[in-house]
């Protein structure tokens, strides 16, 4: 900054609105993606509660199952599902791309690096589902 100030221009300093993420859809999308963290925290707690109920006996577990079916909890769970799927998709599109470029040392096609993750996602879901539903 120059010492001489008399005719130094007075620039306009923009201020950012604290609600900047409503300005444009990509920013809102970013904020929604980040908000998935709330739902990750929520459902991690739900799994803990489930574990506790399971260990505490059949009545406690029945109560837990009943609680999961109450409308407010059910709605939050639906939201969690949507948000976390959104997290998963954005994550699978971005992270493998970064790793692939690091490994290959050159730009790599997005789709190719993202594809395996969707495969793993599917397999993992099926395996967990088979266990959870006691098919195996």
């Amino acid at each position: 900054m120059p010492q001489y100030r008399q005719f130094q221009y007075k620039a306009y300093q923009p201020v950012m609105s604290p609600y900047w993420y409503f300005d444009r859809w990509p920013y809102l999308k970013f904020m929604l993606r980040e908000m998935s963290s709330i739902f990750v925290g929520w459902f991690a707690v739900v799994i803990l509660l489930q574990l506790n109920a399971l260990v505490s006996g059949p009545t406690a577990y029945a109560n837990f199952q009943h609680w999961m079916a109450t409308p407010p909890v059910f709605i939050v769970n639906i939201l969690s599902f949507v948000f976390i799927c959104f997290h998963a998709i954005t994550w699978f599109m971005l992270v493998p791309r970064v790793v692939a470029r690091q490994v290959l040392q050159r730009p790599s096609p997005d789709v190719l690096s993202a594809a395996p993750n969707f495969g793993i996602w599917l397999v993992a879901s099926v395996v967990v589902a088979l266990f959870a539903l006691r098919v195996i």
Partner: protein
Amino acid sequence: MADTIILEVARFSPERDSQIGYQTFEVPLRSDWMVLDALNYIKDNIDGSLTFRWSCRMGICGSCGMMVNGVPKLTCETLIAQFAPGPVRIEPLEHFPVVKDLVIDMDVFLEKLQKVRPWIVRKDDRLPAREFLQTPAQLEAFHQYSLCINCMLCYAACPVFGLDQDFVGPAALALAERYNLDSRDQGAPERTDVLSQHDGIWDCTVVGECSTVCPKGVDPSLAIQQYKLTATKEWFKTWLLPWGNK
């Protein structure tokens, strides 16, 4: 197609104003006109005091960046007809101090740029006897990041920079990565000291808009995430392997 279009142009005079105001202009709507042509029409025919930067008008000098309907664009390669029937809002690049009308103060960016040492750093300063050789594969490793024209659109698109002016920001980080990946360069350790900081790469929350708005396909967002990976590898080397800290 209507034969005119309305432009709402941000005006700011450092002597008179404390806030940005908007002035509307009606300009001819021509299918081959860029937004910059419309602004030049205003300057030539309606109001000569309208101030904005431009030079090459072919998308390579990087000086004509402005917010067009809220999105950072190079105005010399943005067709105005796509916004018909209008109005089109033209504003100076976001998050930067405004000097006059559509002209921003780019010192903020230049300081950041300098900080990352965007040039080839060698351990000894002796001039090599001959030029450095580089294979096509070595060139490809950084080529994409070397396309940056310093137009600052990515800064205008970056909310992290808006929230935290100390953030080194997309283009500077991409250029740091450009030199780190260059086989001729030896400055990576010093750059990592500057960049593996909270206002360096770790401030980035991967909004990703820098890469979307970049007119040159530089993908600064990718560069930053890659850098995070590199910095993490370095960190683990330093703390887990006693001999890693060299």
